[in-house]
């Protein structure tokens, strides 16, 4: 048999024994095991003990979980996390789609500048974001000044200390932080949509909304799922923003979230076992939801 000029390497790959394949992923696997898997397993173990974090641990079976079930604060915190999913995940995705539609429809001058500017909140340290917004939300701060200037005196309030509005204020900052990530994902996705489809839509006389609805949106399905998983996880593990904005869950318990309770129990009240139980439940929720979404994604890929 005559060999072809271009080597057959790709057509006829050499046989690789599975062990060799394992060898290749080994370095990454070791790092992952030591810094992720092992701590998770340990957390699971700690959650079965009554332990301050530095005392002799006492095995108590599932008592921590039983206590968790009856812990009103924990349920309240989970509710708040669910509330933040709207602000961390759903609103940023919608805003991201809107901006993508605006930016892909026609080329704007200074597009890169806009894109960079809109992405900045995402890359800023959450603590810096928190400090900036605490200043913006202050009673004599710019937001209230603006309301006064607009004659909306009735709306002036201590936003972060207001029992009704504190959660919305913290959520609003979440939107501001997260939409940049969604936008960048979607713009990248939109660029890979076949331009023929847009031409076809134009020929068919589609208006902007129809074009978005029937071409852009279906083309971004994968990116939307990815954005949802990322922002959903962020919403469930939000800590730093709340820690800075409302100094740990105030006013009262209006903005306490699960990760704040974990920190408080494990490190401030010296209840590492109980904190570990809480952390594990949160992990299970995150993994379950992410797995469901990923499955949705792969089943769609199969369908295509």
């Amino acid at each position: 048999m005559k060999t072809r000029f271009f080597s057959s390497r790709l057509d006829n790959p050499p046989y690789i024994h599975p062990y060799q394949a394992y060898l290749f992923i080994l370095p990454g696997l070791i790092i992952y095991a030591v810094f992720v898997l092992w701590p998770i397993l340990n957390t699971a173990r700690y959650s079965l003990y009554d332990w301050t974090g530095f005392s002799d641990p006492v095995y108590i079976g599932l008592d921590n979980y039983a206590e968790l079930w009856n812990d009103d604060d924990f349920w309240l915190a989970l509710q708040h996390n669910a509330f933040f999913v709207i602000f961390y995940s759903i609103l940023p995705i919608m805003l991201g789609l809107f901006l993508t539609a605006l930016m892909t429809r026609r080329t704007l001058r200074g597009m890169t500048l806009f894109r960079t500017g809109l992405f900045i909140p995402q890359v800023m340290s959450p603590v810096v974001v928190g400090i900036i917004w605490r200043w913006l939300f202050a009673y004599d701060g710019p937001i209230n000044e603006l309301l006064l200037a607009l004659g909306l005196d009735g709306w002036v309030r201590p936003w972060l200390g207001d029992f009704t509005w504190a959660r919305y204020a913290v959520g609003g900052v979440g939107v501001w932080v997260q939409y940049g990530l969604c936008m960048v994902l979607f713009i990248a996705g939109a660029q890979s949509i076949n331009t023929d489809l847009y031409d076809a839509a134009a020929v068919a006389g589609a208006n902007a909304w129809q074009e978005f609805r029937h071409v852009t949106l279906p083309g971004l399905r994968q990116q939307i799922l990815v954005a949802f998983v990322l922002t959903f996880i962020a919403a469930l593990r939000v800590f730093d923003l709340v820690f800075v904005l409302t100094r740990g869950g105030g006013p009262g318990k209006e903005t306490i979230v699960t990760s704040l309770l974990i920190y408080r129990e494990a490190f401030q009240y010296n209840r590492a076992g109980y904190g570990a139980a809480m952390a594990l439940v949160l992990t299970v929720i995150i993994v379950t939801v992410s797995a469901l979404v990923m499955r949705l994604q792969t089943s769609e890929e199969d369908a295509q």
Partner: protein
Amino acid sequence: MKSKRSVILLTIVALLVALAPAAAQDEVTLVVWDNWTRDAEQAMIEQLNAEFEEANPGVTIQREAYDTSDLTDILPLALSESGGPDVAMINQGFTGMGALVEAGLLLPLDDYAAQYGWADRYAEGLHARNRFTEDGATFGEGNLYGVSNTAEVVAAYYWKSDFEELGLSIPQTFAEFEAMLQTIKDADKTPIVFGSLDGWPAIHTWGAIQHAYATLDELDAFMFRREGGTFDTESNLVSAQKMVEWIDAGYFSPGFEGMDYDNQTFGAFLNHNGVMWITGSWMTGSIIEELGEEEIGFFVIPSAIEGAPPLSIGGVGLAYGARATTEQPDLAAAYIDLVTGPRAAELLFEQGFLPAATVDPALLVEGTLTADVVEAWNTISSQNAVGHYLDWTVPDIAANIQELMAGQVSPEEFIQDVESDYQAGGM
């Protein structure tokens, strides 16, 4: 040849002689963790450390500074390691010192206290705050696990110019104090600068009212979880109602719910957006830095109980303790003796701190803020009127007070909420 060899020999001998003192004396390193992070504080503690090293040749102090909340978070782990700090500053209360004692991480200091005469540093009632039983279960009695070098009193800073303008003088009764608030309000000024965003300042402000109505016995029983300790007292209910009354009367800064402590509340007081500020003596240095010694005064809020001393939130600051497994217990004790002793008191006072040990009266200058603060401390400590930080026993109480202030709960519900937290162990 010979001379060359002798030169080498001589050199070696000379080297040995030069090295000898260092080798003969044990080179010892004492690891100290403290919370002196500001420049002026660093200078003070470095000075003390230098004096300690000079008095103890061969000893090197290896010092690490953390801010208080970091220190509280990481100290437990550090103390359980063999290379951890020999001496560290420890926060009081059940979740602080109590948990460390329970885990057997701290060295009981009673023998050293007797040896150095620490009992005379300040009142026994204050030493009790650094005492726990060996199992860490009972607070306020048992072994001594730390010695403090600073004191704190929560009282009222005030603008002297406003007092002059409105014809006000330091109140002698709680009724006078309340009347004063109304006078200031009528003059279209904010009586009390206050911000509750951070949570803990709410404890101090409500606590100031509570301490006016409560007795020390009541508070001690509650704090140390003694027989009969309860939050459900008449005095707590009256003070909760009083707090609501004051909010409705507009005695606090507008928008106080959204004001943080370090920038907005402190800023409001410095900018003269209010006449008084009820907070701890720890702000003295910072106020003096901005406004000097003359503009601002400080007074303790009188008791609402007739003839009773002006019970005020206060106490001793973080305590210097030693790691149970330290290899240098004697040296650690000697260090604690220095940093909590008279020399440290002098340096602390110079930095605008309130030392726990008595300040030489000769150092006080009439009419200065510093003198007011020292006098406030002397007033309450000499009359056994040093109250408590409520969050040592019920750490979540700030959230409850915020609910009370916003009218989310009634005073009665507030009492019940805190009481049920207390009965459940405080967490």
